[in-house]
């Protein structure tokens, strides 16, 4: 379980996090969503123990990161958005070097390296310099290193950025696999739809403050899709459309929010009332609209 408790952090006069608190339970994937610069990565760096907070603490399976960093770090894995390694190392050497910090002998570490790196399709890169790896390979290597002791908690920080579709699918499925293994997974992104389908809940952050923590079904309920219509008789159509949901005029179009019937039934009803439908489209930005509405309501 990952607990972020009243964490605050400033860089100079710039307050980056302000009393940030949330929890990721075991067997749960929590999306951590906020705009770029909202404070997601800073929260995560504090959670994995690489940045000391000004106030508050991160608790990993009941162990304080600030007080018992080594023990806490044994229980959490981290794949950063842009993993940065010491570039003069070879892949295998850096793996062995880091395995040394886990107290693993050279022989065991070599076996482990082969197993993990081959599993993550880095078997051919053992003798490559870390500097020569692509972004995707670096993320997979960071994952391999984080899997050295198979920790019960995992944090993916904007991990889907810059990945090809195959890579995106890989990490999404991995998060689900970890969840099924009972691990607590924090999955950060600046795009809400990236965590859609995998997250059980979403923690929203904006300008260093938590805007809210919502279960995924709550978000789905609030952020329902809309149908955008262009018709020849606007006033008459509003009368017809109120039967199917809340309709509002947007310029020359009408938006039917959270429609209660299918698009075909709605169009049929309009035609039966002598209203011609000139244009129709499904609005898919429900999640993002929800997110921006949160920012608008709570962030500014």
């Amino acid at each position, binding site marked *: 379980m990952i607990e972020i408790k009243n964490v605050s952090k400033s*860089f100079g006069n710039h307050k980056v996090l302000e009393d940030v608190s949330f929890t990721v339970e075991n067997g749960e994937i929590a999306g951590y969503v906020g705009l770029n610069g909202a404070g997601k990565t800073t929260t995560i*760096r504090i959670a*994995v*123990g*690489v*940045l*000391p907070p000004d106030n508050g603490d991160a608790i990993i399976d009941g162990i304080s990161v600030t007080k018992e*960093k*080594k*023990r806490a*770090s*044994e229980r*959490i894995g*981290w794949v*950063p958005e842009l*993993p*940065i*390694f*010491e*570039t*003069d*190392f070879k892949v295998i*050497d850096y793996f*062995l*070097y*880091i395995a*040394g*910090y*886990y107290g693993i002998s*050279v022989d065991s*570490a070599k076996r482990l390296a082969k197993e993990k790196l081959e599993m993550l399709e880095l078997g051919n890169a053992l003798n490559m310099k870390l500097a020569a790896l692509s972004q995707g390979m670096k993320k997979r290597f*960071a994952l391999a*290193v*984080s899997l050295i002791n198979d920790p019960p908690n995992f944090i993916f920080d904007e991990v889907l950025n810059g990945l090809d579709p195959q890579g995106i699918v890989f990490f999404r499925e991995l998060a689900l696999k970890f969840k099924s293994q009972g691990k607590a997974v924090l999955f950060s992104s600046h795009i809400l739809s990236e965590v859609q389908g995998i997250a059980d809940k979403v923690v929203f952050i904006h300008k260093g403050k938590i805007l809210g923590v919502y279960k995924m079904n709550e978000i789905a309920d609030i952020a329902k899709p809309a149908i955008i219509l262009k018709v020849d008789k606007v006033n008459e159509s509003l009368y017809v459309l109120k039967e199917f949901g809340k309709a509002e005029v947007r310029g020359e179009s009408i938006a039917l929010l959270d429609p209660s019937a299918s698009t075909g039934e709605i169009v049929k009803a309009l035609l039966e009332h002598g209203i011609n439908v000139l244009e129709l489209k499904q609005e898919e930005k429900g999640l993002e609209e929800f997110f921006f509405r949160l920012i608008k309501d709570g962030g500014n």
Partner: protein
Amino acid sequence: MKPLFYDFKRSFLRPATVLSLVAFIVIGVGLSYIVTTTLSTSVRIYTEGFGKIDLSNGNFIFYFNAYDANLKPLNSNVAIYLGIMNTSANSLSADAFQTLKSWTFKATNGFYALNDTINESVLSQIMSSQSTTNAPSNMFPGLRIQVSSSLGVSDEIIGLAMKEGDRYAYITPFGGFSIIDQSGNMIGDVWAYLNKDELMLTALLDLPGNGFTFRCAILNSTLIPQGAEALNNTIYLGEANSGLNVYKLNLSDMNISSSSISNVYLTVEGPDGKIYSSFSLPIERVSTGRLQGEIESISTGSAGLALFSLFFPIVVLYIAYALIAKPKGMGALEFLLARPISRWDVYISRFTAGALTTLVSSAVFLLAFDASLMLITGYGISASHLVIIFLGILSSLLAFYSVCYMLSTVLGGSKYLSLSILLYLFFTMIYNIIIVILGTELYGTGMYLSNNFARLQYISYYFNPIGLVNFASYFIGRSLNTMQEISVVNPYLVVVSAILWIALPIVIGWLLFRKANLSR
């Protein structure tokens, strides 16, 4: 693999460190040669030679022996020239010595014996020049030997004996002393050296057979004792054989004051009881220890090992960059710190790795230098002085490393490099210039300056991490009596200064690193 060992391995085996070390080892070997070059003009060697030609058949024997200034057998390259000396010519002129035949050889462990045959043409020239009737009075056959070694060179004319029928004739000058028997066929040359209470006699002998014994009398004048009683009072030295014979006497064991003696007189007794007696041979007083002092003084001086402590800080500066400043500047330490490891672990492990690299590099360089010195000269730096100079170099390098390491915790990448290079230049050059200016301003010029300036300089070394090595040179200089005492140099303060220079930056660096933002 332990991360500390890994950090050490990659800091020590990185190309910059290895190449620099190799370069310094090569420089060290070069320094050994510089030491020998300097020695060849500052200390002397002792060469001994004795040659004999049998004029009836041209048989030539030559015995050679050489000692260094410490009376240790000397490895040397030797050239012998058999020729005609013109005693009336200027000794430096070309016609002072006309070479008829020459030999070259390497004398290992001091001694070399040569056997050869002189051809008719050379023999006839030799015979005509030594003839009392045909030759001009200023022309004599002679042997010239030129010796070159890592510990000095020599070029001199030595004794040549010639056998003509049953009779021996010998040609001056002789190196020391010879035994001649007009009726027998034994001849030799002897040298006597006195080092403190030890009298060493070296005899190059050509004996007609075995069973000879050697005796000597120690004299306080050039007068040789006369009569049978005098012969009975000689000291038995040992058996005498053809070739090199070395005898040592401890004068204090014999209750003889070394200050009062001046000559020795020697006898060789044959198996038939016949005694061959020598001339009075002057004793050469030798002061050993100077050679070792010279070697150490040159080695640890400004043109010697100090070069390492002057330039190796550049590598040290780079090690701190590679271990902390560079990964910190890139943001690469964060990924490492997400492992079960504390900041202190990273901080102290990498400091230790760099410190170990400095220690091993200094040790490798010093040992390589000492080994090359040993190989070339047969002498190394004494163990105690080696330890002192090692500690001096190490503390100096570690102090500078600590300062650089502290900087690396707050500055990343190029900013670190710029500032650390500036610091290096400051401590190696600018700082010293400031001290010179300060000294001149405070004490003016002339003698008054030189005494006070030395004190000021040594005070300044306490406040300069790279300057700490100068104290090691000072302590060695004092021990060799090559340096004046300087009142401001206190061994305890030197140790405190070194500890503070190393420890304070580590502590300050840690306080900065503990809370530092390690992201790019």
